């Protein structure tokens, strides 16, 4: 029983860290730009496909694919922000959301055209294909790797936002756009930069997903974006710290839910999301405004 619990925990943690990789970029973009980006799931999907294609071009070198794939997606993100999203910041919420939704539809179908509508089996990563024995049972090495990457990304983001010059500007712009602009920050350029960086995070999530999820499908972004929304909401929209903890909670909750009440795991997650929105709209970990 104990062994099984440990494994449910481990599975939950790795799933949570995996969602965190996607939710981090979503949250960063929302925190600074104030736009909830449906297309973030598409960047994740594109990250996975680019990564897959590149690694098959470079004789299955996963790390090379992971390094280059997300950079290609960044170019896509740049186009989306610079030529489209920039012109709807002043509009009402439905237009912003629907613009990003339009990109979801476009990217899903472009992927179908370029890579085919079916699923693609993904390769394994050299050196991480196997499993290790934990508490008497086997656990995939790659999941352990994801569990290590998640906190590293969190640490990197924290260091960047708190300790660097760019981070200070980002924080200033997210708390008061006008003030930052008055202080000479080129806000539009900053927005583009943050969006592209957020895109890179999402695409990295996708790249790292290639060995993790096993199959690539054109609709794979739509599932993860909802998970990321849930996590972002539970942590408090725009709060990176909240999103990290929210991802852990959702990972564990869905893992335990699947194990013990398999019929209601999804229900459980959404009832938690609604509950947080109703009683603590600033999120579990956000400060009350």
């Amino acid at each position, binding site marked *: 029983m104990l062994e099984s619990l440990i494994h449910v925990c481990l599975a939950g943690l790795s799933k949570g860290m995996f969602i965190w990789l996607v939710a981090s970029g979503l949250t960063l973009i929302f925190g600074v730009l104030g736009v*909830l980006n449906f297309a973030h799931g598409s960047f994740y999907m594109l990250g996975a496909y680019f990564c897959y294609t590149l690694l098959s071009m470079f004789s299955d070198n996963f790390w090379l694919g992971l390094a280059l794939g997300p950079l290609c997606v960044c170019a896509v993100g740049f186009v989306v922000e610079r030529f*489209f999203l920039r*012109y*709807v910041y002043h*509009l*009402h*919420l*439905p*237009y912003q*959301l*629907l*613009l990003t*939704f*339009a*990109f*979801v*539809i*476009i990217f*899903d*179908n*472009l992927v*179908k*055209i370029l890579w085919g509508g079916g699923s693609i089996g993904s390769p394994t990563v050299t050196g991480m294909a196997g499993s290790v024995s934990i508490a008497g049972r086997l656990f995939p090495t790659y999941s352990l790797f994801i569990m290590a990457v998640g906190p590293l990304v969190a640490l990197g983001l924290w260091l960047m936002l708190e300790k660097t010059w760019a981070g200070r500007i980002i924080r200033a712009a997210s708390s008061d756009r006008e003030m930052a602009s008055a202080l000479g920050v080129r806000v539009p350029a900053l927005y583009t930069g943050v969006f592209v960086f957020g895109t890179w995070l999402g695409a990295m999530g996708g790249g790292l997903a290639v060995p993790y999820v096993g199959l690539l499908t054109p609709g794979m972004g*739509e599932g993860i974006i*909802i998970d990321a*929304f*849930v996590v972002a*909401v539970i942590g408090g*929209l725009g709060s990176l710290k909240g999103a990290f903890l929210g991802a852990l909670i959702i990972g564990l909750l869905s893992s335990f839910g699947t194990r013990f009440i398999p*019929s*209601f795991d*999804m*229900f459980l997650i*959404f*009832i938690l*999301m*609604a509950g947080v*929105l*109703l009683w603590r*709209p600033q999120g579990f970990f956000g400060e009350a405004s």
Partner: protein
Amino acid sequence: MGRYLPYMAFGLLIVLLVCIGLFADRFVLYLTMRVMLLSIFALGYNLLLGRTGLLSFGHAAFYAAGSYGMALFYLHINPDPLLGILAGVGLAVVASLVIGFFCVRHTEIYFAMLTLAFGMMVFSLIWNLRDITGGDDGLVGIGRNPLLGFSIAKDSQYYFLVVFFFALTVWIIHRIRSSPFGLVLAGISENHQRASFAGISIKSYRLAAFVISGAFAGLAGSLGAMLESNSDPFSAHWTHSAEPVLVSLIGGLHTFSGPIVGSVLFVVLREIIERFTQNWMLWLGIILLVIIMGFRGGAMGSAEQYLARWGRKFREESAS
């Protein structure tokens, strides 16, 4: 003259629909029914989005409530079609009352996220309660028994029932939009703070708009269940909630006829584009992009603007 124009347009539309019902082939008949169902869904929905300014990602749940309410009533209680529709709409009203009660506490992005959460709860229930809802198979075998002595078993007969409910919806939504209630909704959408200082309890009005739109989603759902003779779990999925939004946007968010025109364009364009390419959805995405970037009034809004400009020019020319 201008005042009677909408009534004339409405009359013409009904005549056209009847003609289609009498003379068109089965395929056109089916498409027209789909257009009308989508219109009913979107007309109700746009009362919430275009009028009240609330973007819901949960209305697929009420469509599904109508669909499953109808199906369950037919399969377990009584096979009468009218009672079935009533049951479907009733279930949708109850669901939207309960869900709306919680959701109208927020607006904007928080409202959108709340409706998404509740909508997905409904979806997960439908997906998992296999014994009641049939799970991923849905509910099948919904027949069409005679209605008040008239057979509606054939599509060409059922068609007129759909026309009836479509006309009813158009009439009701029109009445609502030109009623005090409709004006107050527009006021709330423009400036909710000011509206509450006009003695308006904004939450109650938002809830009322939410329930009305939920009821029409339910109507579309129960009619859809009878048309397809099944209930589909994915009709509750959030992506289905996006459909009335897209349709309203294409037709024009802030116009009365927008949802209808949008539904026609949506279904007709899909048919045309699918003849030539495999990628209707890609084109839909591009169309949306173009509308949001350049033609936010949608088809009807842009047409209105164009007509107004043209009219002004015409007057100026005739004056000089």
